[in-house]
């Protein structure tokens, strides 16, 4: 890690870093700069179990939720990486129909996708574009509790914003500077890093 930190422009990041940074930048700060063992919370364990179940069910479903015809193809847990972006990640599901590619992220909540999910999906789409060599126009966040696939159209401004997030993460790691805490206090309630933020009551 240290050698990579010395050349932060090249520092390999993960797509989950993008998601976490938008949720709370300190999570990424702690992950990269504090040698602490991450506590596995009940929420994480539950997410893992749900993931396995969702994969099983998803294989049997039609493509109606995504408004695609049945000649589409599903690919699960797709490894994606880009040397150019120095970014990698594992996408939950990839839908392929003809020449069109749609990244899909599963979420185990009842709430519609939030901003961090949107940029996570965008980051996957950017990796996908580098892998398949063509633009990816849209993707989906699948909310499992409600079985709704929320379509997200990728805009040039979203791509730019993800690049800015990646640059901000690298800059933060380079400077070893503690970023501001999550703006919504409710996010701190069951955070595994809570005890390391000394400005949170």
């Amino acid at each position, binding site marked *: 890690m240290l050698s990579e930190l010395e050349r932060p422009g090249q520092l390999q990041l993960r797509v989950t870093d993008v998601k976490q940074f938008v949720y709370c930048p300190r999570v990424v700060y702690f992950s990269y700069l504090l040698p602490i063992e991450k506590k596995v919370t009940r929420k994480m364990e539950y997410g893992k179990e749900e993931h396995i179940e969702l994969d099983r069910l998803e294989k049997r479903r039609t493509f109606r939720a995504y408004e695609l015809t049945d000649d589409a193809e599903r690919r699960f847990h797709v490894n994606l990486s880009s040397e150019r972006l120095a970014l990698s990640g594992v996408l939950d599901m990839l839908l392929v129909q003809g020449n069109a590619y749609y990244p899909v992220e599963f979420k185990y909540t009842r709430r*519609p996708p*939030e*901003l961090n999910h*949107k940029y996570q999906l965008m980051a996957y789409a950017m990796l996908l574009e580098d892998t398949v060599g063509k633009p990816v126009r849209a993707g989906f966040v699948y909310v499992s509790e409600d079985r709704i696939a929320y379509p997200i*159209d990728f*805009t040039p*401004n*979203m791509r*730019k*914003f993800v690049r800015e997030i990646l640059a901000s993460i690298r800059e933060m790691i380079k400077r070893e500077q503690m970023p*501001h805490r999550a*703006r*919504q*206090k409710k996010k701190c309630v069951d955070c595994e890093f809570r005890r390391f933020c000394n400005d949170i009551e």
Partner: protein
Amino acid sequence: MYFLTDEERQRLLKGILPKSRSLEIAQELRGWNWHQPPLEPVYDIPLAVYEIAGKYCSTGRDIYLRRIQHLRAAPNKDMIMGSAFHETLASILVRAKRLIYLHGVDNLRQILKELPEPPQGIVERRKHDLSTEDCTELERRVSTIHEFEVARLSTRIQDTVAKQPYIKEDSLVATAIPVMIEQRLDGSFLGLSQMLSADAFVLPEPMIMDLKYGEPRQFHKLGTAGYALVMESLYEYPVNLGCVVYLNFNGDRITVSKDIHIIDDELRQRFMEERDQKARMIYEEIDPGVAKDCYPACPFRKHCK
């Protein structure tokens, strides 16, 4: 200047407008949620939109010098010219509206006769801050803008009256000149100044317009985003569109280009991030340091170098 060409209107109606209506803006980034994070102001430092959106100095030291060191700098030539162009445009549009109300639709000939009268005092008020040469240049440009806008307004008024023979004054103003000039806004819900002024606000589909003189810059869109957020905070209806109008001169000719854009999640976040950073800088009295890429016309240049 603020009226769209046929192509721009087509682009707006077929491209940008449907997209802006289908695009889901995160609720937390709508101005009416100013009472909760991330929109809720962290610091009690009211900022003007131009202070947040004007990123000509990449570190923001100009704001530090003005707000913390209380330094004053004389505006540069571009700033003086720009303010004169704004004033010219505002005066013509307001004058056209005034003439319609004053003379009434039945006296169209009188309205069109008085409309071309040039605005008074715009150059005179600025001549002490400019060289004689710049004054002459400003005079020529002000009259170019005036002529350009008078011609467009005359056509719009005549077209509207020709199409709607029974139209009355108020409706004629709203149809032919559907822009509110220098809309005054109270930005205090969002930690901004109580005395903001948006260059123009288009009524039919809420759109903030901002007139710029010179080269397009990415951060110009932050200004429209700021005003859109303030309008949402005040009136609780969505403002999804912004338009930066670029005015330039090619000899005695005017060139106008428009950057119509959606005030999307990303733009809103950038604006709020910039607001928080600048408010913190002032609150904590942090000197952000001299920018590496100072622009030559910066009025604070001598204080940094």
